[in-house]
């Protein structure tokens, strides 16, 4: 894992001091709320329905047990004893007092963490593949590249007042586990003539107008990464729309200019940028990469696994995936228990996950965009002991990628933008589909729920998506089918008129029943939907 040097530490410490001063000026009335708002937003502090919400950055979703314990400490001391892991691999706290925020940032800085640029119209936390450094299918570890981008984007003076927020994801395998093409910039590491570089996709996003990012350059060398990213950002900063916040994301600019014209402008700017000395030398990438070297794997670790305990067998089958190192597995801790709130964890659970990471996973954890926690390096011979401890703490639902492993936004329970509640719906769905045998029969099924058209719950990218709307003062839920955030990226389509809460769950049963009837061989729900088409599903729902 990356470790701060004196420079990185000094930057976050300075930020704490700066924000402490800004909060004092706000509390003293020297700053108006309008003037304070962009400052607090760049420190991750939102004003929600009931209280301030603080979003803490977890760069590319990677953290160690000391950091995780600090997240638990913050939940206990400053919040209501829980935190919420988000779709951008961050954590947020929903009940924060403004006057506590500087102390929380100081606590975070003590474990090399921060809340810098977790909101505001700036470059947000860089996200990545939760299996980075462990996945059997990656061509390199994407995190050193993400860390280069983290440092470059932190306090970037030219790009801190963009037309709108800006999200970057970096992956390094063909399987996309980070919704890469639904980001403002999606980067995939690729080889070209034996050299490692970056393929750039620009202009993806969800929100009101979902778009899949087109590829705009097939290869950017490592020592030109920053100048190319600067070129992409500068064209956007100058020409992105500022007249309407709903048309201000870069996806609209790329769409309105056309991919070719946007690319032409970026290339022109890039030719200029290349001459300015903006790129760290390759030695800097090498310096950072050393921190991400493999842990000391036991090369004699065995692949043998005693699966005689049937519940353990189910968990292994569903929640672990292949590791690049023989004798090891990547294990996902599901934060989607029956009747739970997707992504929520209590301080006790947070502490336990930290302990287990320390004991079984070389002190490392990852947060996934599906709001779960990954232990990336678990020896197979430790899996049973790990599972038993998770199970005792209610952290062993064997439902990774199944229908109850849903993504849900905070919705009307917390969010001032929401039109409908998301959490109670996710809870009811988890109850209706609680039977694990039934879930496994349905197979991989990505269910994603947003409480309004801003799409924080990724409903556009759900195999099944649900969009909460306000219909004449009552909550109404539209059903969408056919989205995907993976390498087969697609956008879901609305089936038809919406439903009330129970009605939409009935409709989900109708479409899953149809899938079971229609599926051929080992088709997933999404495969059957794509083959059969919307009409048959519509017919089944609406008659």
């Amino acid at each position: 894992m990356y470790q701060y040097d004196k420079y990185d530490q000094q930057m976050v410490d300075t930020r704490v001091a700066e924000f402490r001063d800004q909060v004092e000026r706000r509390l003293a009335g020297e700053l108006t709320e309008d003037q304070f708002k962009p400052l607090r937003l760049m420190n991750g502090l939102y004003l929600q329905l009931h209280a301030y919400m603080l979003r803490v950055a977890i760069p590319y979703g990677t953290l160690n047990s000391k950091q995780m314990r600090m997240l638990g400490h913050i939940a206990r001391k400053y919040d209501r004893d829980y935190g919420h892991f988000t779709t951008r691999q961050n954590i947020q706290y929903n009940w924060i007092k403004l006057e506590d925020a500087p102390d929380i940032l100081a606590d975070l800085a003590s474990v090399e963490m921060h809340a810098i640029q977790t909101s505001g119209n700036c470059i947000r936390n860089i996200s990545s593949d939760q299996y980075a450094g462990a996945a059997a299918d990656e061509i390199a570890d994407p995190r050193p590249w993400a860390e280069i981008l983290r440092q470059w984007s932190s306090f970037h003076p030219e790009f801190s007042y963009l037309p709108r927020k800006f999200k970057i994801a970096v992956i390094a395998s063909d399987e996309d586990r980070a919704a890469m093409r639904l980001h403002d910039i999606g980067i995939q590491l690729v080889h070209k003539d034996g050299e490692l570089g970056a393929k750039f996709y620009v202009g993806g996003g969800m929100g009101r107008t979902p778009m899949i990012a087109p590829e705009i350059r097939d290869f950017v060398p490592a020592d030109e990464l920053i100048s190319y990213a600067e070129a992409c950002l500068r064209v956007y900063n100058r020409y992105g729309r500022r007249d309407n916040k709903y048309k201000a994301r870069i996806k609209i600019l790329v769409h309105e200019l056309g991919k070719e014209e946007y690319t032409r402008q970026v290339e022109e700017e890039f030719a200029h940028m290349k001459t300015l000395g903006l790129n760290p030398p390759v030695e800097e990438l090498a310096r950072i990469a050393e921190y991400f070297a493999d842990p000391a794997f036991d090369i004699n670790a065995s692949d043998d696994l005693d699966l005689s305990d049937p519940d353990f067998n189910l968990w292994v089958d569903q929640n672990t995936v292949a590791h690049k190192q023989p004798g090891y597995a990547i294990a996902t801790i599901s934060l989607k228990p029956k009747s739970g709130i997707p992504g929520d964890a209590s301080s006790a659970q947070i502490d336990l996950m930290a302990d287990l990471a320390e004991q079984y996973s070389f002190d490392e954890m990852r947060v996934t965009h599906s709001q779960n926690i990954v232990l990336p390096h678990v020896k197979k011979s430790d899996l049973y002991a790990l599972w038993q401890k998770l199970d005792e703490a209610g952290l062993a639902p064997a439902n990774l990628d199944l229908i109850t492993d849903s993504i849900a936004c905070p919705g009307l329970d917390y969010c001032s933008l929401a039109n409908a509640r998301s959490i109670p719906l996710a809870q009811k769905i988890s109850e209706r589909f609680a039977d694990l045998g039934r879930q496994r029969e349905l197979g991989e099924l990505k269910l994603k729920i947003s409480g309004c058209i801003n799409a924080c719950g990724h409903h556009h990218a759900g195999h099944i998506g649900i969009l909460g709307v306000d219909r004449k003062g009552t909550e109404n839920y539209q059903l969408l089918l056919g989205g995907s955030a993976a390498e087969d990226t697609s956008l879901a389509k609305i089936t038809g008129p919406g439903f009330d809460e129970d009605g939409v769950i009935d409709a989900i049963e109708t479409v899953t029943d149809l899938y079971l009837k229609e599926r051929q061989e080992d088709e997933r729900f999404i495969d059957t939907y794509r083959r059969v088409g919307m009409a048959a599903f519509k017919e089944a729902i609406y008659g």
Partner: protein
Amino acid sequence: MVEAIRFRDDDVHEEPAVSLDAFLDQSNATAVRIEAGEDARLLLPLLDRLALIEVDFPVFGDGRGYSAAQILREAGYKGELRASGDVLVDQIAYMRRCGFDAFAPDAPIDARVMDKALELYEEVYQSTTDSRAPIWKRRHG
């Protein structure tokens, strides 16, 4: 509280700034004002003539002026680069990093708060037109 801020040793340029259109139409003006949506690159062939470029910020959240300033400095402009309009104390440090060396804020600024903000960060992560050495350069010499 201060209303005009300048980080230059030369004399204040007395000629009032004209609009970009007017500047491009007349050959003798030496000061120009560009609005947020205007293309700073139109000035690049004419930088030798200019002693003052004023870049307007209609609202502090409109960040186009930061790119305009960088573009002008990257092209070698050495004259006064003045940010005007909704310029607030908490944005001045970033504006300095993008090459602004004078400020004409709509509302007066507390010089004490500004000085503190400008001295706060000893190091920077990026290379910009202010020529400060980024952290990666400190690490690798």
